[in-house]
């Protein structure tokens, strides 16, 4: 070890632009399984562009929620209040609009502002009152669902024709909502890899005390991330109201957006312990779920079997990541 060999032999990688192949592999695998299912069941129409876009369309709601959930999990928090918040967003949107196009913008702004407030509430309960995020967001979610169910029994109000453009409007072959989901994913990716906030999100989740010692206001980062996640859930509520023409207090619960979003995030390789992962994995996880749904619809197999398979995939994915990580360390 003389002074003459300070050669930098380490592989040169550029931080921030670490792109993992795993999301691509997950998407490719999902599409192959989907294609095989279509061929085997003879439903060639599913292989057309329209068929594929139909699959993507069904991932939009979960996709937007899961993007928010990704950010939250990256700071080592979690958000179980997203499903009730989706319902709140959908119901408030259609209830305020009452079919009147003039109220569209006001209703949307109200829903997003309300969601942001819920995010602040979650964040403050977690960072100031020091309540475990699982419990804090579970509690907030129960409160939201309770108020909503007590106030509305069924579909409340309706959205005007014009608002349905949000879900059904198209640009070329794609719908607005699919474009929105991918646009949000790109924004989140840029934010995580290329802004201070992104770096501070990874730092807060990776080592909270270390981040604090480096002068990062970790509490503020956590609150911001919860606000972003809640706004994503509110946005999903708006989308569902547009798609279903009205909001009902069970839309969020029926979509199981809380647990499914966490599952999608985890399948995508973001670790619950925080500090590692990214949005493309989450998008891949959501597409995997979308393909799985389509495959089961095509084959007509009992839908409960689908749950079994989903559960198995989540566990297998986490086990595979754990194995890989261990391999790197050793």
């Amino acid at each position: 070890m003389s002074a003459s060999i300070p050669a930098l032999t380490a592989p040169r990688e550029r931080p921030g632009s670490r792109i993992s192949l795993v999301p691509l592999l997950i998407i490719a695998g999902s599409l192959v399984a989907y294609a095989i299912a279509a061929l085997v069941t003879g439903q060639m129409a599913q292989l057309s562009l329209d068929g594929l876009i139909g699959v993507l369309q069904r991932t939009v709601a979960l996709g937007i929620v899961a993007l928010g959930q990704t950010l939250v999990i990256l700071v080592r928090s979690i958000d179980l209040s997203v499903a009730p918040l989706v319902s709140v967003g959908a119901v408030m949107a259609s209830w305020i609009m009452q079919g009147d196009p003039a109220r569209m913008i006001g209703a949307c702004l109200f829903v997003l502002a309300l969601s942001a407030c819920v995010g602040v509430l979650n964040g403050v309960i977690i960072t100031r009152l020091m309540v475990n995020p699982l419990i804090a967001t579970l509690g907030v979610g129960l409160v939201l669902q309770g108020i909503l169910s007590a106030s509305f029994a069924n579909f409340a109000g309706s959205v005007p024709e014009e608002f349905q453009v949000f879900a059904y409007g198209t640009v070329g072959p794609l719908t607005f909502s699919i474009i929105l989901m991918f646009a949000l994913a790109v924004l989140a990716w840029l934010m995580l890899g290329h802004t201070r906030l992104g770096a501070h999100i990874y730092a807060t989740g990776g080592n909270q005390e270390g981040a604090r010692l480096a002068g990062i206001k970790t509490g503020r980062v956590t609150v911001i991330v919860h606000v972003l996640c809640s706004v994503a859930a509110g946005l999903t509520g708006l989308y569902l109201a547009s798609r279903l023409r009205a909001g009902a207090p069970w839309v969020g619960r029926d979509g199981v957006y809380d647990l499914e979003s966490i599952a999608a995030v985890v399948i995508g390789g973001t670790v619950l312990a925080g500090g590692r992962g990214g949005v493309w994995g989450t998008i891949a996880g959501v597409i995997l779920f979308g393909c799985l749904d389509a495959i089961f619809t095509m084959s007509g197999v009992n839908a409960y079997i689908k749950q079994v398979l989903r559960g198995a995939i989540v566990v297998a994915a986490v086990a595979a990541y754990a194995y890989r990580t261990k391999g790197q360390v050793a």
Partner: protein
Amino acid sequence: MTFPGVVALDDVSFSCEAGEVHALCGENGAGKSTLMKILGGVYQSDAGQILVEGQEVRFTHPLAARQHGISIIHQELSLLPDRSVAENIYLGREIARFGMLDHAAMNAGAERWLQRFGCRFGAGRLAGTLSIAEQQIVEIAKALNFDARILVMDEPTAALDDAEAERLLEFVRQLRAEGVAIVFISHRLRQVFAAADTVTVLKDGKLIATSRKSETTPDEIVRQMVGRELKDYYPAREGNGESAASALSIRDGGNDAIKDINLDLATGEIVAVAGLEGSAKGALARAIFGAQPLTRGTLQIRGTAVSIQTPRDAIRHGIGYVSDDRKGEGLALQQSVLENALLAARGIEPLFASTRSRRIRELRIDGALQNVEVRAASYGQPVGLLSGGNQQKTVLARWLALRPPILVCVEPTRGIDVAAKAAIYHLLRRYADEGRAVLVVTSDLPEAIGIADRLIVMREGRIVGEFPAGAAEEDIAALAAGHAAAPVE
């Protein structure tokens, strides 16, 4: 400043001039780290004031301290394992252009720091893949990487070998010339005297003395720290070698990290393993303990060939292991001292052990904790609230109570003060004298020479030589660095 049950600092006044290196010395729990954490805005003091350049300031968050030009190198590593070296160095002060991070600029900046330290890894490496010594260097670069006017270094050289430490001291002198005020906390008195202008000694949260370096001596400092003359720093060897039997023997052992290992360990002896960063001396310890098992060669314990694939195997064969990473591997910080000390015993206890046998174990652990003199308000206190030295003693007590016939210690005295070091040396010697074998892996050469009956030198995963007790430090260092051939035996 008080912790539950303990007053950590009591009426301490301390000042450091621009362009001065002020060393802060004291035993475990003397309050050095607490003082620095108050200065860094990590803790808030209950009384008193902080003046920066004559202005009174109050820090409620580490960020506030930094805005006043105070940078702290914390003793406990605070890196993000899944982020690159560059991202860690620029954490909290990322370079951004138009709101977007400038990764190229940060990488180049980080690369410059690594070159100044002569590091052999790139800025793109994930921090978690670095060794502890390399992480320590990144931690230092992170603290130096902004124009600090006041720099506090809490045991900065604890994980560094002598060459790396010397490079760091060179930096300290350079920064002093630039007018930076430097507070240097270290237990290595040689480095204190190499770097400092002024030395302040704390004891039990109180200020004992502040003196110019020219007006004091290392012996004087030690006396002030301990409050008494420190005799017999290293324990005497009893030399009952004639009845020694083989405790552990490895033939042609190897795995990914180590090669061609032939090692014998006899009862009643302490063998030290020395080597520079990258010598894989830690990997040897991990191999013996089954944490990174041998894939080649044979391993015998008391003359019987055994296979050790997991730490559990090792514990069952009577091997104890004191890790060099107290926080990461050794301790559950939120659990009590007693729980932590019981951990190893719990692991091998039958699931339905009788309450009586558990009670006996607990008593034995209690005895061991008292034996190593862990200073805590009570053994029910969370171990995370104790000072580094007391945490280390807790880890030791865990194993001493189990009395494994073979004890492997990695850097057993890192980051702890002289009195605690001496206590640990005596504990290890007594332990060996009772007919057990001790293997000590250490980067601290004087320590290795002082406590070992035999000293093994490793380089790049191989054992390159062996020295008897009392060998010269220069010879060992030269062999470890690869400048000299192995000694003729």
